[in-house]
């Protein structure tokens, strides 16, 4: 985890969810790139955060795109976030004794037929699922993210309030972490649309 650095956080709001990551890619203490996103769209309303070893970020992103496409073709419908979380879990557990060094975070809304309910989940590197009702954090700044999120988050935040909460949580947490930071990207998912914003952060 400390080889490349990086952190991801996801939060639940009122009929919305948000997921955010920092933008640093490092090689131990050396920063190689400051445009390395760790959150990727899975469907129009599900996003996946992949903090951890950067080679596995790219590989897992490719694998999940393939597996979700196969699911969509076979089932002739979009995958539900719960189902996708289990897909993530089993994909990681397949490599139980030679794992991908990634701690994924899933954030999304259930399908409109099922009420567009907010959903977030995180797993460890071998796929142990954690369905949280409030927020999940992963990556090198996880302990800092826990502290700030625990102080700032509250139930039933509107999309704009949720955006402010997750942004402040991430920025202040990564500023105390040497392996994360150099800007951030935030996605706020509502039933109507996804709003993506790139944040400026401290560049040290």
């Amino acid at each position: 985890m400390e080889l490349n650095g990086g952190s991801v956080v996801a939060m639940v709001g009122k009929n919305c969810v948000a997921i955010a990551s920092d933008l640093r890619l490092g090689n131990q203490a050396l920063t190689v790139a400051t445009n390395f996103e760790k959150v990727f769209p899975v469907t129009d309303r599900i996003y996946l955060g992949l903090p951890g070893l950067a080679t596995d970020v790219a590989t897992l992103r490719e694998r999940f795109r393939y597996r979700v496409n196969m699911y969509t073709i076979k089932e002739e419908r979009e995958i539900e976030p719960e189902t996708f979380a289990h897909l993530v879990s089993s994909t990681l557990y397949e490599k139980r004794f030679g794992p991908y060094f990634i701690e994924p975070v899933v954030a999304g809304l259930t399908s409109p037929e099922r009420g567009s309910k907010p959903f977030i989940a995180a797993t460890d590197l071998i796929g142990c699922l954690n369905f949280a009702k409030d927020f999940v954090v992963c990556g090198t700044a996880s302990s800092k993210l826990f502290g700030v999120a625990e102080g700032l988050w509250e139930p039933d935040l509107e999309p704009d309030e949720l955006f402010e909460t997750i942004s402040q949580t991430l920025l202040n947490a990564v500023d105390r972490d040497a392996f994360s930071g150099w800007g951030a990207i935030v996605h706020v998912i509502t039933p109507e649309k996804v709003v993506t914003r790139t944040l400026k952060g401290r560049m040290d």
Partner: protein
Amino acid sequence: MAQQRSFNPYTENGGTILAIAGADFAVVAGDTRQTEGYSIQTRYAPKVFRLTDKAVLAVNGFAADGNMFVKKVKQRLEWYKHAHSKDMPLQSIARLIQTMLYAKRFFPYYVYNILGGIDEQGKGAVYSFDPVGSYERETCRAAGAAQSLVQPFLDNQIYFKNQTGEHPTHLPLPHVLQLVTDSFTGATERHIEVGDGLEMFVILARGRGSQELEGVAGIREVTTSDERERVFVINRDLKRD
């Protein structure tokens, strides 16, 4: 075959401490849980100590070293009082703590110290130390097991980091007490070594009114002499799981 045995003179007893300086007050707080490994040794072991009516010291890390260190600091302050017929000024206590810590540079007290109180100008002050005596005056500081959880929250809420617009340099006392309580409930929620009880010391500058503290639950005054700085203790419950 000869066996190598070694005695480890240190352990880590968990817990977290925190101090915030206001314009004319200071708040120094700590939780009261003491742990070793996954065991809770006691649910009430104070980590914050009144040194004088204007100085409060919080110690965190190895509890035995912490208690011994506080004992020695208190002894030095008593000698000072007998020699000079007054309490030692806060900045002098800070320098005293540095020399006492550095004196044990090669067998350190395994503790992080935070000193809070009122300086000679009547302003709130916080000094934070590392185990060998490096120190710095600051507005706020967290230390201990949940430092990584609390400090970034304080950066945001006390220093207004990553926030735009105009901001006050000092916050009002009730607001500070609320932030301290929130920091510790948050740390208790996510850190297994933090919990059981919260002990907050409030030091008010000379002549400052104490109206804001009236009606605060679990408060008690521990000032020793009149017409000077006043010290209060607030005890709160934290989750015990």
